[in-house]
């Protein structure tokens, strides 16, 4: 419990302020330790340069604040300020709080480019140069701790959330399995009533975070809003030891619907990103490790238009030791060790992006791949994403077969290249083999990706592809039912319409039988179309019939009557 002491005017002890500055600028720590005892363990250049900057700015500040803060500087100090005015620098306005410069308090106009760091605090903005300086300091500190930066996405990467409303009936059993919110450690499934959500953490995520935090400084970057991001961080990291304040939500990003490393305080060459969506990071694809999406809840599958069943419906889950997170952790360990290998002091040349590429190129090293009927013939094969992915994985790609080819990737059995491959005893796989290698970071056994499996899948697909109801037979049946319905309508035109058909068409109860027949034999979009046509025709006819006599507002179309209705 202490009260702040008088501002110790250290420099007043030295007579010549300029001389003091000289000594400080020349030597590293010894001279400065007299007046600025540094308690940091890490005595690196950044701290001293920080000091120097601070000292210079301090002097300028004193003169500016003279009017505002009377108690601050003693008379002696102000004399020295005027003496040392030559060493004064104009304020660089490194950052603004509100619209005031944080150093000198002046109003700074908005045209200065600054990046808002709302996840640190509301209203704070830093100039680009300042951000670069902060990144450099951060880099040095990280290097001394042998750590890099890792930016983690939340949804479908570390966890899967669903709104309670979207829970399917077969998922209701999950409600009884939720873990309590009081003590979140060890739990995986949480019910968040106050947000109307249920969240499932991905298997292995706790060990993943523990291991990763030893090698990386962790950030969360999500497209959810701030309260969601903070709540998820509480589930993943109840003690706040992994993420701290480094939680970036979509409210903190600079560009909407896009993620970028501009608000991350780490140099781009030392940051890795783990996300399930490649397109969220348009300018940092090289830093990105794409992970397989985690679909636990059915609503998540539906969101991405997948027809397969979600893990909750299958009552199973990703394998813990073998799952996506475990694989990614291995890759991260590999890249990290490559970055810090040899223990060399000069790590400024290393770039984590090229190291990641290096690790990736090991996967399919030695494979020469030819593609058959995978790319449309008109386009340039080299530009196709699959070609690019294969090359990124270390395989060499070619357009024509020759002796050195090891794999033929095809979607169809009957092509020449495939026949050649079977003759020459080369591997024939479908494109899933390359995709699997990309996601699992390991060359997969070719037997699991043979074309026979593709054929099996294809056969199932084919029956889906051909829709029965557009064939001639069913079309005729549909037309018959339709005509029957409409003739019924004409017949019963005298009766009052009570039933609702669709798109504003009403019909009397007598016709309900033919209506059901009509709806059964035709597609719903066709039914709508025919109804619409019918209404249109009726309106036209009515207008033609009694166009002259109609006065005043027209009543709603009553398509079943031919009799000119009395004007209302």
């Amino acid at each position: 419990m202490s009260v702040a002491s008088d501002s110790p005017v250290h420099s007043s002890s030295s007579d010549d302020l300029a001389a003091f500055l000289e000594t400080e600028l020349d030597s590293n720590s010894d001279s400065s330790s007299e007046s600025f005892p540094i308690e940091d363990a890490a005595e690196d250049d950044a701290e001293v340069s920080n000091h120097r900057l601070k000292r210079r700015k301090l002097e300028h500040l004193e003169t500016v604040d003279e009017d505002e803060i009377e108690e601050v500087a003693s008379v002696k100090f102000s004399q020295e300020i005027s003496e040392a005015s030559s060493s004064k620098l104009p304020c660089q306005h490194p950052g603004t709080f509100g619209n005031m410069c944080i150093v000198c308090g002046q109003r700074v106009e908005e045209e200065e480019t600054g990046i808002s760091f709302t996840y640190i605090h509301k209203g704070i903005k830093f100039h680009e140069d300042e951000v670069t300086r902060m990144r450099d300091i951060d880099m040095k500190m990280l290097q001394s701790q042998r750590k890099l930066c890792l930016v983690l996405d939340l949804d479908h990467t570390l966890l899967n959330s669903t709104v309670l409303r979207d829970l399917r009936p077969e998922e209701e059993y999950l409600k009884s399995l939720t873990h309590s919110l009081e003590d979140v450690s060890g739990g995986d499934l949480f019910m968040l009533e106050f947000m109307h959500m249920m969240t499932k953490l991905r298997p292995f995520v706790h060990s993943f975070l523990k291991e990763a935090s030893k090698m990386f400084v962790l950030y969360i970057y999500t497209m959810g809003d701030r309260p969601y991001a903070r709540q998820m961080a509480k589930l993943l990291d109840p003690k706040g030891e992994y993420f701290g304040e480094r939680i970036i939500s979509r409210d903190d990003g600079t560009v909407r619907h896009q993620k970028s490393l501009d608000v991350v305080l780490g140099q781009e060459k030392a940051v890795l990103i783990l996300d399930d969506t490649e397109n969220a990071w348009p300018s940092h694809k090289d830093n990105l490790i794409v992970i397989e999406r985690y679909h636990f809840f059915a609503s998540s599958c539906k969101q991405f238009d997948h027809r397969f069943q979600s893990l909750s419906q299958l009552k199973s889950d990703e394998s813990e030791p073998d799952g996506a997170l475990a694989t990614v952790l291995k890759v991260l360990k590999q890249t990290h060790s490559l970055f810090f290998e040899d223990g060399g002091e000069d790590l400024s040349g290393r770039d984590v992006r090229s190291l990641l590429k290096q690790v990736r190129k090991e996967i399919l090293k030695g494979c020469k791949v030819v593609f058959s009927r995978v790319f449309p013939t008109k386009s340039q094969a080299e530009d196709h994403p699959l070609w690019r992915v294969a090359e990124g994985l270390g395989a060499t790609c070619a357009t024509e077969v020759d002796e050195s080819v090891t794999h033929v990737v095809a979607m169809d059995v009957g092509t020449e290249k495939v026949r050649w491959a079977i003759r020459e005893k080369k591997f024939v796989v479908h494109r899933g083999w390359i995709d699997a290698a990309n996601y699992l970071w390991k060359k997969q056994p070719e037997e699991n990706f043979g074309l026979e499996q593709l054929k099996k899948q294809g056969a199932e697909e084919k029956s889906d592809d051909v829709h029965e109801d557009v064939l001639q037979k069913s079309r005729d049946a549909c037309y018959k039912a339709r005509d029957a319905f409409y003739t019924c309508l004409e017949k019963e035109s005298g009766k009052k319409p009570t039933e609702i058909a669709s798109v504003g068409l009403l019909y009397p109860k007598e016709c309900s039988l033919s209506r059901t027949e009509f709806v059964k034999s035709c597609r719903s979009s066709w039914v709508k179309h025919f109804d619409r046509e019918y209404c249109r025709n009726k309106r036209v006819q009515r207008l033609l019939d009694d166009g002259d006599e109609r006065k005043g507002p027209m009543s709603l179309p009553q398509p079943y009557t031919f009799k000119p209705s009395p004007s209302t």
Partner: protein
Amino acid sequence: MFFHMVLERNMQLHPRFFGRSLRENLVSKLMKDVEGTISGRHGFVLAVTGIESIGKGLIRDGTPFVTFPVKYRCVVFRPFEGEVLEAVVTTVMQHGFFAEAGPLQLFVSNHEMQDGMEYQAGDIPNYTSSDASVRIQKDCEVLLKITTVSVVATEIFCLGSIKGKYLGLLNDRA
């Protein structure tokens, strides 16, 4: 500084609220609208304490809404330059620390601290004095002096200083 003053506001009321409880509806709408907001001139409106008067209602042309001029007493909080107040530290950065005094957000730059204060990075970033007697970290109470006040689009931000006699750390996470 806190003030207890009379402010006036034109309240628009929909006819569905007319009737016996017109006055209550008007007052509750006023409180909902005004409490917790920031007025550029008066600062943070903290609480409505009473109603001075409610004038005659005028029907707005073209709409069924009626406008009542309401005079009400309320407690406002407005920071002034040179004012000394207590604040709780929320975030510590290498440039300085953020503190809040109720609804008011303040920033104290490291240039506005005593010369001996050093930034210590780490798990709990803090500012420590040269003789380690004073340590300012998250949730500490500090006494600071406001140096600049700026009102930016219904937000009030202040810069503060702990460079002065009796300013600085008050309490250590009490």
